[in-house]
């Protein structure tokens, strides 16, 4: 099957790339940094006796979804597209006997897998942070059992809600030859995310800002994210189809 062949080739291209390192580095760095922060300034955690786990997971995952994950997606998509742009590998890639759409989709799958991998690691980071904080400070005990289900469900929902943003960023990165332009755009949307997340409480439209969707999975009281998951999936598919169509028709110079 051509898609599997191309996907297999795309995975090899990630070897020794910064994008692959980021999958491990970002969640490890973020969870280590936030663990250190809570160890040094434990008062917010101490204010939630009996519900340390929900507080800890929300604290780490909010930083992750609002700030780090959009940045991660920006860099991962730009770096992966950057494998082809500098020496114009497109002219070799597009002259191979594989349908062009398989190249577009395979690259999207690889980037999505990277996002999922980093999300899985940040879920592990939440749990590790609880264990480490408990062992570092006797005041910071987490008496309740580790809430594997809640943490994994929250991470899965937030990551799935990122699909639309991944699809947009993927198209932009493959469209623009420059590395700085998509990264610059990505940094701008991260900045906008702060504004939008702040406004989302009162504004009906801003909550549908693609990069702000994952935050809704962390909202308290919990909201039903199923409609948002549908929205992200359907809009993501529309963007992917549009991007794929444009990619297949593109002339390679």
């Amino acid at each position, binding site marked *: 099957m051509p898609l599997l*062949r*191309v996907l*297999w*080739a795309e995975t*090899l*291209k990630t*070897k*020794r*790339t910064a994008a692959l390192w980021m999958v491990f580095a970002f969640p490890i760095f973020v969870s280590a940094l936030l663990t250190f922060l809570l160890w040094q300034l434990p008062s917010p955690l101490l204010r939630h006796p009996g519900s340390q786990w929900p507080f800890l997971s929300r604290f780490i995952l909010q930083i992750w979804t609002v700030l780090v994950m959009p940045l991660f997606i920006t860099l991962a998509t730009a770096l992966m597209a950057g*494998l082809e742009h500098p*020496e*114009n*590998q*497109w*002219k*070799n*890639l*597009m*002259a*191979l*006997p*594989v*349908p062009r759409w398989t190249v577009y989709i395979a690259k999207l799958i690889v980037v999505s897998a990277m996002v999922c991998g980093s999300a899985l690691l940040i879920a592990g980071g939440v749990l590790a942070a609880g264990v480490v904080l408990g062992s570092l400070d006797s005041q910071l005990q987490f008496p309740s059992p580790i809430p594997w289900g809640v943490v994994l469900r929250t991470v899965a929902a937030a990551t799935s809600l990122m699909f639309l943003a991944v699809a947009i960023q993927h198209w932009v990165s493959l469209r623009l030859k420059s590395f700085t332009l998509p990264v610059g755009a990505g940094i701008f949307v991260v900045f906008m995310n702060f504004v939008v997340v702040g406004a989302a409480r009162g504004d009906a439209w801003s909550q549908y800002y693609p990069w702000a969707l994952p935050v809704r999975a962390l909202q308290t009281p919990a909201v039903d994210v199923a409609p948002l998951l549908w929205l992200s999936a359907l809009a993501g598919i529309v963007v992917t189809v549009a991007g794929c169509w444009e990619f297949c028709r593109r*002339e*390679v*110079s």
Partner: protein
Amino acid sequence: MTSPVIQICDTWKRYGSVAALRGISFSVPPNSVYGFLGPNGAGKTTTIRLILGLQRPDGGTVSLFGQPLAAHRIAVLRRTGSMVEAPALYSHLTGRENLEVQRRMLAVPKSNIDRVLGMVDLLSDAGRLVRGYSQGMRQRLGLAQALLGSPDLLVLDEPTNGLDPGGIHEMRTLVRSLPSQGVTVFLSSHLLSEVEQIASHVAIVSKGEMQFEGTLDDLREHRHASVVVEADQTERACSLLVEAGLAPQRDGGRILFGPNVKSTPARINRMLVEAGIDVSHLSMEQASLEDIFLELTRA
């Protein structure tokens, strides 16, 4: 008669208001080395992009192996290997890994990698990262990529760019050996001397238009001789020759006659000597292939 491997009919390509190709037509016979010649900007790379389906023509048809490219892109590209301009390599991967990326896409046996590495003499360096390769090694790896799928047609754009004399010689030897293995080679170059040594067929393109297509022998038949005379009293000699209906051109102390001179060297000599003009030099100069190339591409 066997059908051509590449057939291009009345093909046009425009970039905005600029026509890069103006109705070019040619056909590449099987098992030939087809040299596609032209100066920079003549339309060579554009033609190659059309042959590989990287761009679409604005008019005309491109067929490979008797099938229209537009309708059978995957099928014809499965039989085609290519290297367009500089080789497209991933510098963070080793030479072998670069080939493995391509092998996975082509779904060919793993043994092909060692075979092509051997062909381009890169077996010992295959484990090194490509970012440490010299220009010549990169060029050879690009050729290995093009050969990996055991193609019936190899399309090479300026394949000797960046190669040292030794590398150029190796490339020539390799390309020359391919037709005997059933591979048709289409290679573009702006150097006639390079094409002359390996090609069996030649096409010359200039400003997006075909100027010549045929075998090298056909091209040689285009050669013509011109007559060069050196004599004292050059000015008087010229006047005399003009009166005789010839069209001499003065070049310092020399008198030149173009290829269509309506006389023979012997008659010119007699005419001058009988008029009392001493002739110190008289020769016929055969135009080189390079002269023909320049003449065709300047047209």
